[in-house]
Every structure is written in C-alpha cells, then in structure tokens.
C-alpha cells in the first residue's frame, strides 16, 4: 500500500492506482474527456492535470495515467492547476463549442465562452476514444488518425465509406462531442438495437438492465448482438467490472423442481402492428401501438414523458386514436373484443392533453365499453377535460401526406365522409396471448382455445382452473382483462392452490385399474398403451405394477391386455356384459311389441 497526501490529507491506496482513481475513491472529482476506464489511459486531452510535489519539486501530470508515488503530495485543485486547466479547457471549447460535456466542464471552471474563435470544420477534439475503441478494443480498424499537428483528423482511409466497418456504433456512443456519425463512416444499413422494454422506441447497449426499477436489478448480456460473442473481441464490460461478475462462458443450466400446483400467468402481447397494411402499420414510423404510446407518456420512457413523434421528435398537434384495430374482426384478425382498449384510449387522450395543452386528441371508435368500476365516470370526466373528439366510425385508410398523415373514415352518425389530417396515429391493437405461450401450454398438455388463450374448466363456476387438474390460470393468459380483474383472478388462483396445499392431499376417483399378477404374461403391451405412463414392469414380481396416483382410469390398458390380467374397479368385464344384455332384453321387449 502507498501513502501520499491528497489535497492536504494523508491517504493510503494500493500500489499501481492512478491519481484519478485514488481521488475518485476519496470523493475528489477530477474532470476527464479522453479517459475511459476500459482503455489504456491515452492522456492527450490534458484536462485532468494535477500538481504533484515530489521532494520539493512541483510539476503538472495527467492524473488519469500517472500512478501514485510514495510520499508525494498531490494537489488536484491548486491555484496553478486551475489556471492551466482553464486555458486548456478554453482551447478545447474552441474546438467543440457545442459539446455538452465540454460546456459542463467549462462551466465548472467559470468559463462561459472561449476567447479563441473555432476554426475546426468538424467539432472533433481528437480525444482518440473512437479510434482506440475501433482499433484496440473492437479490433476492426475502420477509422484511424491521419496527418499530424493542427491538420490531424479522424477519418476512414481516403475519407471514403469503410468496407470493414461493422456499424456497431461504439465510436458514436463514446464520442464526447457527438460529432462522429456511423452513417458517415459506413454506407451499409444501420440497425439500432431496440430496447424491448421501450417497445422499440429507444436504443439500448448489449449489456443492459431493462428498466431502472428492474427486479433483480442485475444486467444481462444480449448474446445475439454482443461483439464478444461475434468476434471474441471488446470485453469492455469485463474490464470495468470491479467485482468481476461478468462470466462470458456461463451456459444455460437445467434444474428440476417438484411442485404440487402450477399457476400459468404468461400474460399477453399486442397484435403485431405490421399486419394492419391498410393503416401503414410497420411502414409509417408515426403509426404506433398502445404500448409504444405508453412508453412515450412514461417519465422513464425514451422521451422522458414528453409526447414526441418517433419520426422527427416534433410534438404532435393532433393525434388520432383508432379503436378495435384487429379486435372484433373475425374475417382477418381476432374475433373477440380485447376489453381494455376503449379505456386506455380515453386515458391516452387525457394524458396527451395534459402533456400537450393545445393538442387535439381525436378518437375513432364504434363503441366505448366502460364496463369496470368507476370507468364510465372516468370516461365522462376525461372527455370534458381533454376535449376529446369522438368520431363513431372505423377508419378505412391512413395515407401519408407530406410530413403528416390523412385518415380516411366515415362518420357513421352523419353518414358523411371525413378526412382528418393528423401528426400521429395510435392503433389500439388486439390483445393476444404472449408469443410462445400457447405452444408451451400444448406441450404441458393444457387445453387452449382457438385464439391461444388457456381454456378454463367452466367460465362461470371454475374460471381459474384448467381442465387438467393441478394447473391454474391467471391474468390475460386466460382471456384479455384489465388489471383489477387480473389481480383478482391471480388471488383466486392462489387461493385454489392454497386450498389444495391446506388439505395436503388430493382425493382422486378410485375407479383405477389393478393387475392380477398370476395372469400377467409380462408382455408389456399395456405399458405403451398407458397415456399417463402409470405402468412399469416389476422384475421380482414378474408382473406389471400400476402407480395408483398416476392412473386416471381411462381403461386403455384393460383393452390392450391380451390376458385380461388388467381389470378396472367398478367397471369389470362382467358388469359390462351384464349391461349389454340388459340393452338386448330391452330391445327384444320393444321390437316385439310394435
């Protein structure tokens, strides 16, 4: 360990720590521009200069790369340091007058504007982060420095489009002045990694936490896009992770659990907007679905709660909301009503008006179903407050007109055509089961209806139990429903499970099969016949054994057993033959009579 004086106080740090790291550990903030914790300190911007006094001699050194030396005194904000730092930051500010980071550092030092007029065509401060990332970390080498002195610049060879750039965007996200643009480096299509949580309205890195309040609040690596899994390079997250928690070689693990009951609450997804061809779904960027508009409204969303158009970020003056998009449409999409769209459209209109006071929400709908508690009152209040224009009629087309859109519809109350120009359209697409859930259910042999929603035993009497015993349903996996119903149904399902656990046992119908060991010829035909895998061959007894719990009394084995060794309680062969005889006698009596 090394001891040294930091701004007058004695401090101890491990050997090899740089002054910047040591200062950060002790709460002293030193400005940096070309520093990145994962890179070799490039030490060129010189913004992080500090004064080091070593056996009486003082000199200025870059704190990002200079390692702490025993017995020296470090002054991070001495009068000389501030004087020099101010001049250097002014020089950088002249290079990049509009960069937020540089302006922030300048403001801390009390600099409003640089005395030097900016001559640079591109606001690049040549900190080298992009070049070092592209060459030493991502190891593609699409861009590099060129020339030297005041002519020094960052460019692709000959300033032409690079043929090796992988458009990963590392250079653009590292640039402190935001001057480097991927589309200027490569002419191939740039596909941003879209945040699933933000419904594809914002970009996210490869290692990410879906949203700030995520539980567990731990990141995950998107192996499909992460450079390490593509080329074995980068590893930035591993380098910067102090607790060394990054495990690239971690593979999936299969674990087994024994449970008594299963509650299926796989939730819902929205009907894909791309299928609404007549509304330009998936083609027009400002035609979005309900969840995307929720993200626009949400404070933690891509626009921090401001309603802005995904295409150009302008605040839309008039927003059209379409009801029943894909719902109540047996011919092409979903036949059922998705129940919650009417209500969340009213909410959308109200919140939109709140955010954009001079905005004009227009709702195209055919009915407004406000079936929940307090819903009708909310609907009435919202219409008044938000000044919603309700047009009764399902629109037929959305046509792009200039930078806005024109909605073709019929006002079925007046019977007249109406063409509404608006800046953005929110389609309330249908609720469908979460992608993959129906397949999962079928694998678990839980019955599913034709839409993929899970089938309940009885819609009225046993709505939370699946037809297969032990499986319970909750939420939109069973049918579209709003949050109050979902929570209620979840509690119901839970209580059903608790009922089972409380009893600790299940009463099963006794009419299962048994095996007459002497007759059993161990031919094992019955074992394959049993759909519930309830039968095994017991070697010692030289006979097949039935697991009482697994047997569901379906009788397949009885039919398959050649020797009649397998018999079912209360449905013995003898009983069956008696019943058949009874039928014949009845027939003889009646036929004889007419």
């Amino acid at each position: 360990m090394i001891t040294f004086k930091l701004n007058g106080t004695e401090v101890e740090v491990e050997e090899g720590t740089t002054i910047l790291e040591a200062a950060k550990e002790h709460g002293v903030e030193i400005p940096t521009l070309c520093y990145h914790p994962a890179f070799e300190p490039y030490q060129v911007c010189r913004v992080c200069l500090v004064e080091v006094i070593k056996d009486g001699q003082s000199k200025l050194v870059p704190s990002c790369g200079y390692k702490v030396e025993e017995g020296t005194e470090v002054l991070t904000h001495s009068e000389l340091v501030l004087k020099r730092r101010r001049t250097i930051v002014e020089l950088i500010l002249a290079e990049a007058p509009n960069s937020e980071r540089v302006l922030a550092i300048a403001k801390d030092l009390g600099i409003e504007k640089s005395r030097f007029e900016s001559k640079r065509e591109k606001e690049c401060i040549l900190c080298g982060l992009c070049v070092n990332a592209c060459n030493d970390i991502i190891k593609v080498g699409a861009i590099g420095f060129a020339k030297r002195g005041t002519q020094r610049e960052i460019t692709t060879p000959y300033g032409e489009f690079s043929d090796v750039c992988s458009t990963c965007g590392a250079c653009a996200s590292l640039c402190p002045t935001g001057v480097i643009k991927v589309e200027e480096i490569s002419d191939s299509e740039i596909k941003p990694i879209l945040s699933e949580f933000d419904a594809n309205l914002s970009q996210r890195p490869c290692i990410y936490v879906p949203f700030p309040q995520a539980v567990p609040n731990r990141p995950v690596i998107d192996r499909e896009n992460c450079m390490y899994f593509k080329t074995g390079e980068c590893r930035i997250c591993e380098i910067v992770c102090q607790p060394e928690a990054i495990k690239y070689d971690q593979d999936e693990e299969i674990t087994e659990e024994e449970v008594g009951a299963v509650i299926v609450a796989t939730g819902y997804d929205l009907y894909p907007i791309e299928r609404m061809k007549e509304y330009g779904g998936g083609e027009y960027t400002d035609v979005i679905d309900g969840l995307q508009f929720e993200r626009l409204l949400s404070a933690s969303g891509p626009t921090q709660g401001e309603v802005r158009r995904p295409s150009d970020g302008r605040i839309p003056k008039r927003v059209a909301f379409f009801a029943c998009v894909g719902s109540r449409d047996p011919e092409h999409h979903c036949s059922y009503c998705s129940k919650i769209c009417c209500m969340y459209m009213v909410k959308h209109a109200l919140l939109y008006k709140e955010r954009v006071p001079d905005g004009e929400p227009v709702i195209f709908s055919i009915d407004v179903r406000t079936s929940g508690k307090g819903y009708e009152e909310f609907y009435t209040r919202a219409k008044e407050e938000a000044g919603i224009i309700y047009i009764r009629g399902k629109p037929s087309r959305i046509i792009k007109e200039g930078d806005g859109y024109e909605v073709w519809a019929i006002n079925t109350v007046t019977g007249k055509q109406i063409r509404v120009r608006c800046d953005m359209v929110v389609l309330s697409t249908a609720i469908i089961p979460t992608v993959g859930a129906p397949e999962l259910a079928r694998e678990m042999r839980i019955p599913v209806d034709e839409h993929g929603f899970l089938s309940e035993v009885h819609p009225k009497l046993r709505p939370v139990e699946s037809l297969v015993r032990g499986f319970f349903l909750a939420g939109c996996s069973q049918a579209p429903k709003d949050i109050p119903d979902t929570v209620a149904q979840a509690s119901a399902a839970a209580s059903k499970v608790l009922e089972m656990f409380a009893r600790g046992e299940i009463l099963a119908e006794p009419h299962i099969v048994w095996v007459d060991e002497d007759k059993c010829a161990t031919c094992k035909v019955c074992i394959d016949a049993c759909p519930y895998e309830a039968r095994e061959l017991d070697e010692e007894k030289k006979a097949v054994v039935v697991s009482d719990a697994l047997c569901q009394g379906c009788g397949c084995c009885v039919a398959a057993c050649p020797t009649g060794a397998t018999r079912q309680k209360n449905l013995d062969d003898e009983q069956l033959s008696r019943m058949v005889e009874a039928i014949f006698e009845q027939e003889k009596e009646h036929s004889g009579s007419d």
Partner: protein
Amino acid sequence: MKRIGVFVCHCGHNIGATVNVTEILKELSRYPGVVHCKDYKYMCSEPGQKLIKDSIAGEELEGVVVACCTPSLHEETFRRIADSAGINRYLLEIANIREQCSWVHTDPEKATSKAATLIKTIVEKTKLNDSLEPMRIPVKTKALVIGGGVAGLQASLDIANSGYEVVLVEQNPSIGGHMAQLSETFPTLDCSQCILTPRMVEVGQHDNIDLRTYSEVEEISGYAGNFKVKIRGKPRSVDLEKCTGCGDCWNLCPVMNKPEIRVMQSVSDSMDPDMRSNLDAVIDRNGCAREDIIGILQGVTDEYNWLPRDAICYVAERLEIPVSYVYRIASFFTQFSLEPRGKHIIKVCLGTACFVRGAPRILSQIQSDLGIAPGETTEDGLFTLETVNCLGACALGPLMVVDEDYHGRLKFTRVMSALDSYK
C-alpha cells in the same frame, strides 16, 4: 342380489317433456333387483335429495341409481347424500337421461324406451359395484408460477405469504411484465410503476419465493400434487451473487447497433500484377510484420515516388493490419506522399540559417512562377515543391536542392534560371 333404488328426475320439463317418467317408473319397478322406484320434479333440489336419503334408510337400499342430468353436474351432490345416508358413495350411480336422451330426441316414445334402457344398464352396473374409498394422494406443498407479470406476482405473494414455497419463472431478464411499461393506469391514474415496484421488490426479497428470471419452463411431467418441472435458466453471462448492480458495465458498453462483421475486400487480384510483384519484393526485403511498415513504405516510395492506393491496400492485406493503420502512417511522415509527385522534387531549405538569409523570398518567388504552393505538383507533373527544415549545408544559405543537385547562395533573380535546366 342387491336391493337397488331408482329415482327418476323430471328436471322441470327438460326430461319430463320428452320422457314419460311415470311409464319409466312402472317399467323399472318390475326390473329384477329394483326394490324402490320414485320420481320427483327436481331431484337435485333439497326435497329431492331428502327423498333419496330417507328411501335409502327406509328401504335399506344397497345401491342407488339416480336418473337425471350429466354426472359432471350433480354426481358429487348425490354421492354426498349417499355418504350421509350411510351407504358407500360409489354404490350410487347416475344415469344420464337428459343430455344423452331427452335433449337429443324429439320422439317421446323412443326417448322413453331409450331412457329405460339407460337406467337398466346402470342398475346392472350398480348391482356388481364394490364399495370403494377415494384415493388420497399426498400433495407437495410447493407451487410453480409461470410468468412474472402482475398476475404472477400477485399469485406468488399470496401463496408465499401463506407460508408455502413458490418458484416464479419469468422469461425476461426482469419481472414486471407489461404493467411496468405503462405510464399511468385507468381509472385512478396511479403511476403504474409506483404501485407495481413495491410488489416486485417484495417478490424479489421474499424468502419463500425462488425467483428465476431469464428462464423458461422446459417440461412438466407428473400429475396434480406431484409435478416434476424442468426449468431452463438461460445464461445471463453475469454472476448474480458477485454483481452489485453498480451500472458501470451498462453505462460504458458502447455497442448500440447490431454489428455485422464484414471482411476487407482483397485487392491483390484486382491490382496490376507487376506492381504486386514489386511490392512482394519490397516486403520480402523488409519483413512482413507490423513493425516493418515504415521500411516497406520507404521501399515503395523509392519505387514509385509516391504511395499508390492499391499499394497501401495490398500492404495492409499482406501484413494483416487495417488499411486505416497504413493510411495513418502514410499521412504522418512527410517523406511519404499520398499524391503522385512530379518528376523533379524541389526542396527549398527553410532552416534558421537559410531563413535569416532570405529563404522565404526565394520560396515565394518559386511559388508565384510555378503557380503551386509547397506540397503541390505542377499541372504538367514536372515539379513538386517542398519545404525542408535544414539540409545541413547552412554555409550555402539560402539553399535549394532539386533531386540530388544542390543550388546554394541563391539570389531570387537566378532562381528561375536554375530550374530551367530541368524543364
């Protein structure tokens, strides 16, 4: 022979309208084994049930057949009556003469005959029924909840708070489902995340809940009460114990677009062959590693007087380094030029000695006459003008060197004549 009691239900007019119940009673009372026959308008109602219960006791019946609607509706109700009446509940059977007879037939006569047959078969079955006890299967008191949305959270909490263990499997990296994405919820306009996050945290910290995020249910086997579940935990590539959630990694990961790895197009076959053989010779002479780059480029400059683009690309290809790196070296050193240079190179010395002896005046003279600035080449490709910082012959300042010949102690009047000899 068991003493069997038959009870026929009218079910309002559901059965009575198409099946002649009195006819049935008459017929059944004569049937061997049937010692007691009664009917009632709603057998499943309280009085109907009481009738059965009393008859069992009164007539000491050993088997009961109730002709009414589908067993899935009231089998349980009548079997409970059998229990309370003291006989084994499995000695009571249901004959379904509604869904399987009266509802599906219109001809009363045939319906009545079919109903009688149905009842008779069940009577025969009941005669040979043994008395059985329901099987008691022990239940594992642990629940699996699939899906970490608001529904999954609520169900898990209810079960866990009752003291039982729960395994919550969520396919996304975090629980919260779509509700976490909402801004505010109708009709109360609560902030959706504000009311959901406490639940999520509670689940996250609940010691009865084994939270499995970024996992999927692979397979479920077994039966109610004893399921075996295979859960596939997708690799997060992050060790959850060690990770403190400090955020350094996701704030510093720079890759924001889907990377598409592309390989440098080879230039070796599209370039002209003898340049390639020259370059091979230079590379063999200087070595084929990254540190020999400067020697190689000097070799190329000796050969072509400048660095053609194909040469730079080929060298990069042979040394397996990015073209941008070779371009950087080529543009850094003054000896290398990326533009074709003239036949003759004019170097005007601007060293201190020559400078004080009037070199700038010589330079401006040449510039105005040839019409090119330092670093440029004349249109006809004859001359390239360059400035150098000392040629080591300060005594002859101001000095100019053309290719290899030195022209010292220049007077601006004689400058242009010196150049004529090269035209």
